[in-house]
């Protein structure tokens, strides 16, 4: 067992490692976590949590393999090398979605979205005004269109915080956040909703009443002004000093680099 409890802050951490450590802190013993495709940051975060503070975090790799024993993070987070040596193969049509819809299990979900707006609505469908002849056809909502509406706590990760990915209003809602803000989500009969947005610049959360996105912590060396400049909508002015995001520890960095992802698959999400 690694000495993660007494490990000191690393001084050579990279941004991917910081984001992974921050997401890992959201998952605890007794939670169940699952991941979709091209999800290197969430997968590394679940794995890191299991190796440190949350050994009993249940992981359903690729939404298929329960408690897998992969060798390392592979090139796909949806293929068999990730769900190697699972204790159960979960059938998708009947079982996985029953587990997810039920409400008692898989209560947290990590979401990547091409566009995310100030009320936490996500878009992976189309860029442009016309759904049927879009300017850009995105991959599609896959499971997000479900996860946004069925009471999950949503954790967005965004390795490219810029005005094109964090926008005033998404061109198309394919993952329900707080909709128009305020009580709109609750009035639509939806439970849960976006909790955090972990980007390469900061961590954002949502105001408890307005449900507007706001800066919760700044990564070391990043200013509020830099975040505002990289954001496509006006962020609420901070009421006081904004905390700094905790940096990963020496042990967390070691685990990510040596045990979890020695092939640096997670870096693929940090292209630009």
């Amino acid at each position, binding site marked *: 067992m690694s000495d993660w409890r007494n490990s000191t802050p690393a001084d050579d951490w990279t941004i991917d490692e910081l984001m992974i450590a921050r997401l890992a802190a959201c998952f605890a013993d007794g939670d169940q976590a699952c991941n979709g*495709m*091209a999800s290197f940051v969430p997968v590394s975060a679940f794995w890191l949590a299991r190796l440190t503070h949350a050994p009993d975090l249940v992981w359903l790799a*690729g939404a*298929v*393999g329960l408690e897998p024993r992969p060798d390392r993070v*592979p*090139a*796909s*987070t*949806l*293929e*068999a*090398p990730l*769900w*190697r040596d699972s204790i159960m*193969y979960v*059938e*998708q*049509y*009947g079982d996985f*979605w029953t587990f997810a*819809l039920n409400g008692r299990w898989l209560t947290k979900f990590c979401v990547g979205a091409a566009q995310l707006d100030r009320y936490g609505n996500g878009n*992976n*469908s189309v860029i442009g005004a016309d*759904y*049927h*002849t*879009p*300017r*850009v*056809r*995105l*991959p*599609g*909502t*896959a*499971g*997000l*269109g*479900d*996860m*946004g*509406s*069925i009471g999950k706590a949503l954790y967005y990760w965004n390795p490219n915080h810029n005005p094109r990915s964090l926008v005033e209003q998404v061109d*198309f*809602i*394919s*993952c*329900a956040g707080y*909709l128009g803000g305020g009580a709109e*989500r609750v009035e*639509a*009969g*939806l439970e849960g909703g976006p909790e955090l947005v972990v980007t390469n610049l900061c961590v954002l959360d949502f105001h408890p009443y307005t449900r507007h996105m706001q800066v919760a912590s700044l990564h070391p060396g990043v200013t509020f002004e830099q975040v505002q400049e990289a954001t496509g909508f006006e962020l609420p002015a901070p009421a006081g000093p904004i905390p700094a995001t905790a940096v990963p520890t020496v042990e967390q960095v070691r685990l990510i680099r040596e045990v979890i992802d020695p092939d640096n698959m997670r870096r*693929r999400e940090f292209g630009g």
Partner: protein
Amino acid sequence: MSAEKLSTLEAAAALVRDGDTVAIQNMATQAAPMALVRELIRQGRQDLGVVCLVGGIPVDWLAAAGAMTRLTGAAVSMEQFGLCQRYRKAVEAGAIRVEELSETALNARLGAGARNLPFLPTRGLIGTDLIDVNDNLVMLEDPFGGPSVVACKALVPDVALVHAHKADRFGNIGCEPTALWPDLGIMPKAATTVIVTAEEIVDSEVLRANPDRTVLPGFMVDAVVEAPFGAHPTSFYPRYGYDTALHMEWIGAARDDEAMDRFMANYVTGPAGHAAYLEAVGGAERQTALKAWEQA
């Protein structure tokens, strides 16, 4: 005893007609019935509607060949190999019309089709714009006074195409332990015609040894075809992994029309059949490498 279902790739693909709605097993880079998809393109099929959970290279090839005009599905992506660019361009040009569903909504539409119900409900998608642009989804009040649901209209594809590990000549289909994507769980039950390719045709006694691993009964299957490496270049666990090199070659070729035409001629329309395709993509040497995915 049961009726014989053994067929050839050519005859089986000929069961698909122009304009058909075709459900295709696939998950990004996994488990697609590629031998059948290539044969449909070779036979020049037109105006197909494709139904898939997460479509990958089969959708991009069908789009590249101009064989499809409609897609119903939850996503189209080749995961680490990126978006399907030929599909994407066709959608942006208005040549392919997309009905985008969440996974539970797709499952509900197919589930209703399989069970001869007019609709099935989901609680997914509520609050999204996907409901507004889709006449097959409508908000419905709970008759018991609970929360409203999204009623998802029954979908009955004309044909389902799936690839499996084992089949006997009567169309009973056996799977080895692996991920059972919704494709196998629901698509063949919802579709009017079911075509299965299998890594190997086996004696029925092989299936009787593990009756809990038989996933489709012969009476549901219209044609069964032996096609070893029939999912290539997608993966088919536990037998083989996906072919990185061919995916990379495709994403390179898909960037310009000339390279794309060359790729299609070399691999899809050119080879005289499945065996010739397997030779063209690297033959036994490539197959040995793909079988070694666990050591990768």
